[in-house]
């Protein structure tokens, strides 16, 4: 089997986010980076499938600046066989169709049986890339999958629907699957696999959107306005009383 896994490197959501100079995305400084959570499920499912069918070749693809190869190494350590890095420092500006065109451009003549990817990215969250790749390749897509079994060319998929209900879908290859939380628990790479990953093939390619004309642009990027939330006072009872009196004095006219 020939399998493609598309992953994205995203900032850790606990990071201190700042808006970039252009005002259209976050600033890259002081951020910690990791693999998009949903893409981890995609990698894990692909590796499990390989463990099941034995004969499979897993290509992991990632678009972004050089730094994304760090995240690709994790996918290789988890069990992917080779990596394809589309080196594009401007990828954060691109709209989903451009990203999907790059992937489809790479995949079109490779005859992938299954393309796994996350159902969305944790930072942009458009949830469009997977389905657009399927459309561009002219193959079906099944989104938000939470269950996957493969038996002799037939794939049984469990999808998550709104309100917690599930749908069972049967599909055949080739197919694009976008993965959702609950599909699996991604493995922790073993040390021998981390070592092996360092020697695996990692191809770098130039970005090629195949002439797709961008139709959208991020106009501005801002934090939600801070609304007057509650205040939680902490401390000993006498301390709490003092703080409360001070607050009432400062913020209200009750004690005036």
């Amino acid at each position: 089997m020939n399998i493609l896994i598309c992953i994205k490197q995203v900032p850790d959501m606990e990071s201190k986010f700042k808006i970039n100079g252009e005002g259209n995305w976050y600033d890259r400084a002081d951020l910690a980076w990791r693999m998009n959570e949903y893409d981890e499920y995609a990698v894990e499912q692909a590796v499990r499938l390989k463990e099941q069918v034995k004969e499979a070749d897993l290509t992991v693809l990632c678009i972004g600046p050089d730094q994304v190869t760090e995240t690709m190494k994790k996918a290789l350590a988890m069990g992917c066989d080779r990596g394809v890095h589309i080196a594009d420092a401007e990828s954060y500006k691109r709209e989903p169709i451009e990203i999907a065109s790059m992937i489809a451009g790479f995949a079109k003549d490779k005859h992938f049986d299954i393309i796994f990817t996350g159902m969305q990215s944790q930072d942009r969250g458009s949830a469009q890339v997977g389905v657009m790749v399927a459309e561009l390749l002219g193959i079906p897509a099944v989104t938000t999958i939470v269950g996957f079994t493969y038996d002799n060319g037939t794939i049984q998929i469990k999808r998550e629907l709104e309100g917690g209900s599930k749908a069972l879908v049967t599909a055949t290859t080739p197919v694009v699957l976008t993965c959702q939380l609950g599909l699996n628990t991604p493995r922790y790479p073993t040390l021998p696999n981390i070592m092996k990953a360092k020697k695996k093939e990692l191809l770098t390619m130039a970005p090629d959107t195949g002439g797709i004309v961008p139709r959208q642009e991020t106009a501005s990027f801002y934090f939600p306005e801070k609304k007057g939330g509650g205040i939680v006072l902490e401390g000993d009872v006498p301390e709490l009383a003092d703080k409360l009196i001070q607050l009432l004095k400062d913020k209200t006219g009750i004690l005036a």
Partner: protein
Amino acid sequence: MEFTREIYWNVGHGFTTLAPMYGLLLVALAVFAFGFVKRIKVYRLGQSLDRTDQRGERIKHLLENVLLQTKVFRVPGAGTAHALFFWSFFVLFIGTSLIVAQADFTDLFFGIKFLKGTFYKLFSLTLDLAGLIALIMLAGLLVRRYLIRPQGLVIKADDALMHGLLFAILITGFLIEGVRMAVTEMGTPLAAWSPVGWGIATMLTGMGEAGLRTLHTGLWWFHLLLALGFIAVIPYCKFRHIITTSANAFFADRGPTGKLTTVNLEDETTEKFGANALTDLRWKDIFDADACTLCKRCQDRCPAYTTGKPLSPMQVVNQIGEVAFTDREANLIDTVGREAIWACTTCRACEDICPASIEHVGKIIEMRRNLVLMEGEFPGEEVMAAMEQTEVNGNPLGMGYASRGDWAEALGIKPLAEDAAVDVLYFVGCYASFDKRNIAVAKSFVTLCQAAGIKVGILGKEEKCCGEPMRKMGNEYLYQTLAMETVEIIKGYGVKKIVTTCPHCFNTLTKDYRDFDLDIEVQPHAVFLAQLVSSGKLKVKVEEFACTYHDSCYLGRHNDIYDAPRSLIRAAGGQITEMAKNRDQAFCCSAGGGRIMAEEKLGERINIKRVQMAAATGAGQLLANCPFCLTMFEDGVKGANVEEQLRPRDIAEILAERL
């Protein structure tokens, strides 16, 4: 009259006695040697390890622990009885050797006799009393083992054999003496120098000389067979500890205390990490199993065992022994069990008390290394998540790394990247950097330093977890990654001295990082502050308060620091009421060994148990020196419902209030 006795009285001198006697001795020695040769082959299945360096120190440790029974003696009761039995038996052994030396060498070849006169009188009395003490101690140990049956004591067929054989040897020895005295010494002044023998002899005088002589011959040969049988069975039953436990005192780890072996991850030919098979262990790990006497001191003190978790350090050691000597192909991890392997807090209570110099913790860590590095297995998903968080953000709490130094901004403390001209680098650690409760400790510590005129710097967002919890959980790879980065950063700033408020950081920086060439002085805050107080640089007001003090495992047993924190508490006016388990006997808080990252799902909660011990002192405050302990105690006072009576605090907080 001449005060002496005829050796080989009644059994006959010369060839007819000596030939069968030495013949049998040779047989016994051959059986003994054969037994050990077979076992040595098994020890050698383990990986190589040099434990014959520092010979002088090793021999000293051997003599202290064998002849003085130093570690055995630490536990009153059974330990006292064993020590007294050992000394008595040792005296009997020396006595017998002197008889052999005179009868079969000096007298036989040169006609020299030294067992005579005053020396003989003292010799006779000493041996008589030694035999008596040995018998009493053996009886006491028998009562303990078979009647009192302390909880958790393993009783095997070996024990019955050992008790039976030793009793038989001692009793037949006394009977031979009694019979001989009944014929030769009754009514002479010599009898008084063998009071036990005299007592037996008085009961036998009615038998008549002929009967006594026949009885004597029989007993003499029987006693000889028992003694030689004893030598022969040593390698085949727990008697082997006479040799192996003694030898282990020589082979004992010479430190630094508790330091783990650093795995060579650069070696690309290594395909296996950690241990899941016998041959992955070091020879000392297999030898340890043979040195174990099943005294269960480790088990009695293990925080996991005593709270109902499936870990007994004694069992782990013996399960390795079972694999080594019965089923060599067995999987070590399956034999010991994952839950047991994950339950260890690396508190070192087991190793500290072990009279047999066994290293329990390293074996458990080796099995953890195999699970983590070869299988990607952890005790729970929360631990795997903490590992991943550490990879991404440099802390197991998953907080954004860039805010690591935020707590210090208001205090005017700068990262070394902005100002490297400082007196000390404060290596803050993850909890004091991110955890609200422990940030209060960091702030108190910095305030104290500032009051003493010490300029403190931090690494801020350049600081990462020291890697200790990950390393103890078996993730050597992540630990080494963190260690190498941290050492490089610290060395880059030309730091002269490092102070920590976390004993885990302290232990790691001061011991483990030596393998990555960090050779800068590191001090835990309790020691650093105690020096500032005693030199007069730091002045704190004495305001009396009642408290109890918890020795963290990593300041206490791992680094032998017990007095500095106590002197600091007293300097602030603290009246310490000690918990029953204090200093080297302190009971772990539950968070060591990387367990800070794990949920405690089995048995009672260790931290609640410790908090209850603290509450039992009646003191209103529980002073700690470790962020893990403090976290566990804050949680524990809630769990034990003593929030109102007991307040967990760090020593630095107490001092900062008294500036």
